[in-house]
């Protein structure tokens, strides 16, 4: 056995008990090279969980606001307060957080409508469009 081979073997044995190693050697003797190499390949990453469609939709609706996500979410919560009674006061960390907490009190359709009306309001109050008299 060459020094390089010994080094590779030691790396394999690292932090394994003799019993575990015996089991591993037996496995290597039993399986083919192809199946061993296939098993060493990384398992494919699970696909990212599909996001909440309402969060995606609200994010897209609020895109014209020039602000970090937390500020946009705060505006949405504040706007909900102007439209409905008994909106819980909280400072959301982001749009997902705002949607999650607003859902406890409102339907998806109400949150969707609030986001749209917020943009309509901002368009009226904060449009940067200059006019010439």
């Amino acid at each position: 056995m060459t020094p390089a081979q010994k080094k590779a073997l030691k790396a394999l044995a690292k932090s394994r008990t003799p019993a575990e190693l015996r089991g591993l050697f037996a496995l290597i003797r039993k399986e083919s090279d192809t199946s061993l190499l296939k098993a060493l390949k990384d398992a494919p990453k699970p696909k990212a969980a599909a996001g909440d469609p309402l969060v995606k939709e609200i994010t897209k609706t609020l895109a014209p606001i020039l602000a970090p996500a937390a500020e946009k979410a705060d505006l949405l919560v504040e706007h909900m307060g102007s439209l409905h009674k008994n909106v819980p006061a909280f400072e959301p960390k982001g749009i997902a957080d705002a949607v999650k907490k607003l859902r406890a009190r409102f339907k998806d359709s109400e949150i969707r409508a609030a986001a749209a009306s917020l943009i309509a309001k901002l368009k009226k109050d904060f449009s940067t469009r200059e006019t010439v008299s």
Partner: protein
Amino acid sequence: MTTATYLAFEQADEAAAREIANALDRRGISARLAGADARRADVPGALAQAVSEARAFVALLSPAAAQSDWVRREFMLALNNGRAIVPVLTADIPADSWMNLAIDREHFVDMRGGPTPSALNAVIGSIEAAASKGRVIAMLNIKGGVGKTVLAANLFAAAHLADSRSIAFIDLDPQHNLTQYFLPPAERNRVRSENMTIYSVLAPRGPASIDRSAFAGIAAPLNRSKGKNKARFELIAGDERLFEYTLDSRSERDKIEAFARFQALITMLRSRVDAVVIDANPCATFLTRLAISAADHIVAPVRPEKYSLTGLNMLEHVVAEIRGRPIRPEEFSVVLNGVNDRVGSRTGEDADTLTRQEIMLAPFFGGALLNEAVPYSAALKATPSDKYAVNPINVTAMMRVASRQVKTQLVGAAASILRRAEK
């Protein structure tokens, strides 16, 4: 703390002046009494030099002082050199005196009962408060289009966001581009219709005029973040009616009163922010005079082209003319706007390097050139028109531009300017 103070008085008030000087001396504040060494008709600029060297200016107001040409000249020099003015009333002054127009009567120290300990303490308190107040920085170049407005907004937004510096902007340009930069049209209309612009501060009378007691409430907040940063970031908006002061359609009396009202605004802002940043109009008008008179420090942006440099040279003459004395390079920061921006340079040479070398070799402005590079203002200006900035600070590059280099440059340059201004 040692604060040099200039005491302007007439002979009738000499005893009170000496009492004030002694009280200041006991407090460790050096005082210079007006006298023959400064009041020299044969040495032009000697009086201006003496007044401008002091951090604070104490004027003893009495009928004799109201008649004195020297006190009047000293007072105007203190105004034109941006000195903190502490008026001390030693006797009732005539109703028709210039002092009534030029002095904020609500804030004088009453010494009509003599230099009592409480009156002396009030003088000392006013001087110490003046010494610890925020600095006034004017963005100026006689040439337009050099990036004054955009750099003012972005440099001091960087100082606010990165270093929590409290900033108040004053838009003193009739074009009011700084106001347009931060506020959308509807908000601009609102502040204008509610008499919350600098025009209402300057107007001494008429429907748009506001009382001095309302000055503290006219600033539009530019940072509406909840609980993230307590430091102020605010704007005294401008509007197009400021043209009245550039077209000379206002009377001299109106201008004198506007001058005093502007000083009162500056005094109020200095007490609550680290820096008052005045975005002045190009050219040399009454408004430019207001900005230069109030400024502790002048920031002059320069583009790498010859007209911009000519504007810088003119600025030196304008400032010297207003201040009535030779000016010093450390009173300025020259900011080369567009370093490493080679667009438009068709000579094959690096226009920026050439401009930098040219300024560095200049006898006066060589010592004023800022070493720190700033991002090119045209790149900072590109605010998307299809966005709504509910929180005005979000239109600045510090919030909008992702580039770390841009942010680092802005923070570094702003810190350097504030260091120079606070010296």
